[in-house]
Each structure stands twice: as C-alpha cells, then as structure tokens.
C-alpha cells in the first residue's frame, strides 16, 4: 500500500539518481584510463589564446529581467488553466460549458491584454 502511495516518488528519485550515477560511473572509469598531468597552462581559462582580461564573473547586463517577470506571471497562470482544462468535459456534460468557457476566455483575454501592453510599452525591444 505504501509502495502504491510513495511509488511515484521513489521511481522518480531512482531515475534521477540513475542519471547522476551514469555520470559518476563514467567519470570513475575515465579516471582509471585517462592521463592526469595538470599544469598551469592547462588550467587557464580559454579566451581565444589570450590571457583573460578581468574577471569572468563581472556583473552583466542581462536584458531578460522583464522577460523573467512576464514568464513568472504567465507560468503561474498556466497552472490555473490546467485544472480547468481537465474539468471542462465534466462541466460541458452538466450543461455549464458556455459558462466555464466565457470565464476562461476572460482570464486568457486578460493575460493577452497584459502581454499586449508589455509589447506596446516596448519591453520586448532591445535598446
């Protein structure tokens, strides 16, 4: 019974671990075969054959900030759509199809309007 309940989680966990094990085992085998002669030059960062200038971790201007916000909004909304999608048939069978459709259209319409606003505001344009 417990298996039935936790089986899902156990399966997923085992599969995740398998992926990790695959890498680990591969590296282990490779570690036995491969040469290991570290040197200063080998451990340098590759920057087209030139000694790197400055730090590789400088604060970078990523232009995806707004996209990330938009994404968050849409992704959360998408979660709300799924239950509705699954229950649509039941509602339709009960004769409430039109009602749930209109409700969801309003919802999606609001989303679209938000996206349209963002586009019109030039958020998606790279300056």
């Amino acid at each position: 019974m417990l298996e039935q309940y936790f089986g899902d989680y156990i399966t997923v966990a085992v599969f995740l671990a398998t992926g990790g094990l695959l890498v680990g085992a591969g590296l282990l085998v490779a570690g036995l075969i491969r040469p290991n002669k570290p040197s200063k030059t080998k451990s340098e960062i590759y920057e087209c054959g030139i000694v790197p200038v400055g730090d590789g971790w400088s604060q970078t201007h990523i232009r995806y900030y707004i996209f990330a916000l938009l994404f968050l909004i849409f992704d959360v909304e998408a979660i709300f759509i799924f239950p509705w999608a699954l229950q649509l048939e039941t509602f339709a069978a009960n004769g409430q199809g039109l009602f749930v459709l209109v409700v969801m259209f309003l919802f999606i319409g609001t989303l679209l309007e938000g996206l349209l606003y963002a586009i019109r505001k030039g958020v998606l344009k790279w300056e």
Partner: protein
Amino acid sequence: MIENVPFALLLGIKVLVVLGLMLGVSLVLIYAELKWSAHIQSRVGPWYVGGRWGWAHPLAEAVKFLQKEDLVPEEADDKVFRLAPYVMLAGTVATFVVIPIGPEWVARNLDVGIFYLLAISSLSTLGVLMAGWGSGNKYSLIGGVRAGAQLIAYELPLVLALVAVAIQAGTLSLTGIVEAQATPLFTIGGVDIALPYVLSGQIIGFVIFVIASLAELNRTPFDLPLAESELTMGYVTEYSGLRFTMFFLGEYAGMVSMAAIVSTVYLGGYWMPGLSDSALDIAGPFILLAKIFFVLFLFIWFRWTWPRIREDQLQGLAWKWLIPLTLFNIIATATLKVVL
C-alpha cells in the same frame, strides 16, 4: 503476473531498460546525425570505423573521450563546475519515467504526467546554466545566460501547447493521452477512424511544440548558448574529456526524450491503427521508436538547413507569435470541445 514481481526488482529492471534504450537510441542518433548531415552536405560521413559504413564511429568517439584528460580551470567555481553534468543528465534520464512505450510498458504512469515532464525537462537547462556560470569563462557565462533566457521564453509555448492537449484528452497522464488518441472519433463505412492529435485538431500545437522544443534543446536555429561562431563553444568551452561527453550525451538524450514526448503527445505514441492491445504490447516500442526517429530526423534536418537567429529575435518570436498563438489554440480547442 507483473503484480507479483517485487517493487524494487521491477524498478531495477525498468531503470535498466530505460537506460539501455536511452543510451542505445542516443548512440544511434549520434551516428544518424553524422550520416544524415553528411548526406545533406554531399559527403559520405563516417566510413571506416567498424568496417561497414563506419557504424562504430560513435563508440570509437566515446572510447576516445574516455581517454582524454579532465581539466578543471583554476578560476572555475569548482563545485558548480563539477556538479553541472550530473544535473544535466539526471534531469534528462528522469523524463523517461512517464513515457509509455506500450499499453503496459511505462516506468510509472504518473497522474500529473505532463506537469512532471515540463518540470523535470527544465532541470537540464539548470545544468547548462550551472556550467555557464561555474566555468568562470566569459563565453560560457554569456552562453549560460542565453540558455536561461531561452528557457524562460520557450517554456511557456511548451506549457500552453500542452494545455490544449490536456483539454482535448481530458487527462494529464501520457498513457491516458495515447489512449485518447486511440479512441475512434467517427466511423466511415463501418471502420472506426482514430487519429493522432496532430491530425485531429492540434496541428498548430504540434508545430509550436516542435519549435519550442528545438529552443529547449538548444538546437539550431536556437543554438545560441553554444553559438560556435560567436562564443567559441558557449557553456561547454571549458569542459574536456568525459565531462564534455556527458554534455554531449545529455544533449542527444534530451533530443530523444523530447522526440519521445512529441511522438507520444501528438503522433499517437506506441499506438498504430489496426493493431490490438496485445499486438501493441510487442510492436508498441518499435512503433514509438519509428515515430521518435521521424521527429529526430526533423530536428537534424532543421539544424543542417537553417542558420542561427539572434536572442532578441528569439525572444520576439516566442512572445509576439508563439505565446499568443498557443493562447488562441487553447481557446479554439476548448470551444470545439464544448460545442462538439
């Protein structure tokens, strides 16, 4: 019979089967890409290793990579750098949990199948992001950031395209979705006609899903995180030896899993018209494999035909076209579902 096998043993068998399938198909895919791209470019491709048509070429490459020295740059963030391939591959392997290869053949038929897929497939992008950040290399950093941006932009079309499928199928379980596609829609001359979703209402969803999955997989025309001519090798610039191979393998295994999802959700998965359930138990995996390779052929064909687009264009495509289109697709599917 299956009920009597202990859970742990069954799970072990499933893991081995899935792993074998994933690695086997990935190796065949690497070979197929070498050959297909060669033929697209009027070359012959691998020719010598293994005697005939160079069939052992991917194996030889794997052996070669095993012998390569494993370098970790001094300036890299050691832990993140080393952890990245694990995350990448773990995420990819875990996607195979829910993909059914026959009516009874699925590692675990999760109720939240589609949800699970979307969540777990993003994990490999996390691996890419870690690799980009951990390398301490500027190209890698830019590549990793690009990968993150791509995930953000194309996760939504993926999700929203699948919402329409969920509406049509009425379930999130992948086995359920395949069964829904096998359900006859109408009868012509006494023959029940069932159609995969690509032919019965989800053509827009299919196209968008394929485009978005190309972006998720960082395949051309969306291979910006690697972008050889701009960022030398993007997020894998600093990786060498087997660690690099793991990214390589992860990329191809990711393709296989994505192709499996597309085949299952839109092309009917293991199901084929005219075959009974018991026949599908045996033929199912092969049918699915054939569909997977059809999708993979599309992926490869696109890669060797098209150039790469720019990030702002990539973002624009997702936000201005794909997302509104998927929303429209949801509305259309839902309306049809209620009306019919």
